[in-house]
């Protein structure tokens, strides 16, 4: 098992509540997986800047003087906002390409969680309620977000094995299920030059999408081809800068419930996760079809692409 929640806001007046609503949804899913928890929040954006969320096991030591050291290494102003074991680096988009190397040079033990203009990812080992309070997720605002609580099956319970996984700029993936061909796919993707950090199956799923998109596929196309190339069980929820998408494998044994009102589109592994959302009594509630890619975006109307199983 694992628990997934997602919330995409159509009504701007709810944006200040995003962290709060997502936290409540995720805590309800705790008994689907108590190993680790994570949340991806699509929040504010500063023109000309890119945000990197980074993590350290010893934040006091690693984050002290990080802004100065990185600014010097990159020869460009970097500001750092520390939040417990995570920190968000605000970097000029001109110099952003060098951040991974610069970080490896000045703080080799600091791990990269995400990169994007609006995306921030917070994840740690522990219960959803503890992880959410560690990062004060409830106070965060944003346009949309995704949460995950993990019951590990394929790899170790570590921060880097927690979801969501960053797949590309402002893109992230969470997964309920297990992939059975992740070892061979990992070898293939590494040969293609894709950076894969852990032995985790979902990270391979995320890396697969990154690779597909690097080869020119849109996210929708990458999700569709995942139905052919990934062997195993999955319900995926993906986040992008503008929206979020859902896809389930053709067998569809991993549960999924969606709800839509004029104010939001919500996803939960179970209906329980959605019961405290405003106006849920009158929402359209349904189960997403197997082998079908669903997508909602702030930029365009919702789309559904069915692919033959």
């Amino acid at each position, binding site marked *: 098992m694992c628990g997934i929640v997602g919330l995409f806001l159509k009504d701007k007046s709810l944006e200040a509540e995003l962290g709060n609503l997502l936290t409540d949804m995720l805590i309800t899913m705790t008994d689907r997986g108590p190993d680790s928890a994570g949340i991806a929040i699509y929040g504010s954006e500063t023109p000309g800047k890119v945000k990197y969320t980074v993590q350290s096991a010893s934040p006091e030591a690693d984050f002290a003087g990080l802004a100065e050291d990185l600014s010097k290494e990159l020869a460009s102003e970097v500001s750092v906002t520390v939040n417990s074991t995570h920190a968000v680096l605000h970097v000029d988009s001109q110099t952003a390409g060098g951040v991974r190397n610069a970080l490896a040079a000045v703080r080799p033990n600091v791990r990269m969680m995400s990169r994007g203009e609006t995306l921030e990812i917070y994840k740690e080992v522990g219960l959803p309620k503890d992880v959410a309070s560690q990062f004060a997720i409830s106070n965060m605002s944003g346009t949309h977000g995704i949460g995950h609580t993990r019951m590990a099956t394929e790899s170790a319970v570590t921060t880097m094995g927690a979801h969501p996984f960053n797949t590309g700029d402002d893109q992230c993936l969470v997964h309920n299920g297990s992939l059975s061909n992740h070892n061979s796919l990992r070898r293939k993707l590494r040969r293609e030059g894709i950076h894969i950090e852990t032995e985790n199956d979902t990270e391979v799923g995320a890396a697969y999408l990154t690779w597909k998109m690097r080869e020119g596929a849109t996210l929708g196309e990458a999700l569709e081809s995942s139905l052919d190339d990934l062997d195993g069980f999955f319900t995926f929820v993906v986040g992008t800068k503008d929206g979020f998408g859902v896809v389930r494998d053709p067998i*569809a044994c991993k549960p999924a419930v969606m709800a839509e009102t004029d104010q939001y589109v919500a996803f939960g592994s*179970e*209906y*329980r996760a959605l*019961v405290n959302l405003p106006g849920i009594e009158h929402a359209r509630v349904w*189960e997403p079809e197997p082998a079908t890619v669903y997508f909602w975006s702030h930029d365009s109307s919702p789309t559904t692409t069915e692919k033959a199983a």
Partner: protein
Amino acid sequence: MQTLDLQEIGLRQVNETLHAQADNTNQTAWEIVNPKGAHAIACGLNAPIEVSVMGSTGYYCAGMNQQATVNIKGSAGPGTGENIMSGKIVIDGDASQYLGATGHGGMIVVKGNASSRCGISMKGVNIVVQGNIGHMSAFMGQSGNLVVCGDAGDALGDSCYEARFFVRGSVKSLGADCVKKEMRPEHLELLQKLLDEAGIDADPQEFTRYGSARNLYNFDVDNAAAY
């Protein structure tokens, strides 16, 4: 009417109260409010009582039901009515996967759609769905009837034994050893009875019957690919 507030007294107390009802109880009408998608609501009932759950439910609502009537005034989560022995379950909304799995008897009515694996390994239960059903429904169905007023998904009745399937709409694909069969007068009569019992107005003449071709009952090497 007795009202139980699930948020107030908790699931265990709700179910214990319902389990305490004997065959000759005078308290036959029950209402459960604030279900909020909780799991295992009204599971294991065994008394001639009628329970209405005022909202949507999570996993395994009304599982192992005997005698009781359980009305779900919302949508139902995975495994609803699993291993039902007798009685009736009526779902106003949609039902999630493996509805009525391994059910031995009684009836389940879904006013909306049922998702994948509806009636998987059914052993005598009657399931009537007003909408559509998902893939792999009635997989290994052994006996009982599955009535679908809408469409059926992929692999209907795969590896089925003697369960009967009546579908009014289209069938995306039939599973291994499941075939279309002739609607004889006794089937029309049976279907009318099931529809009446489910309270659904539909003409039996519009349905097609499917069932086992009985080719997979005994091992035959020529069928190896189909097992």
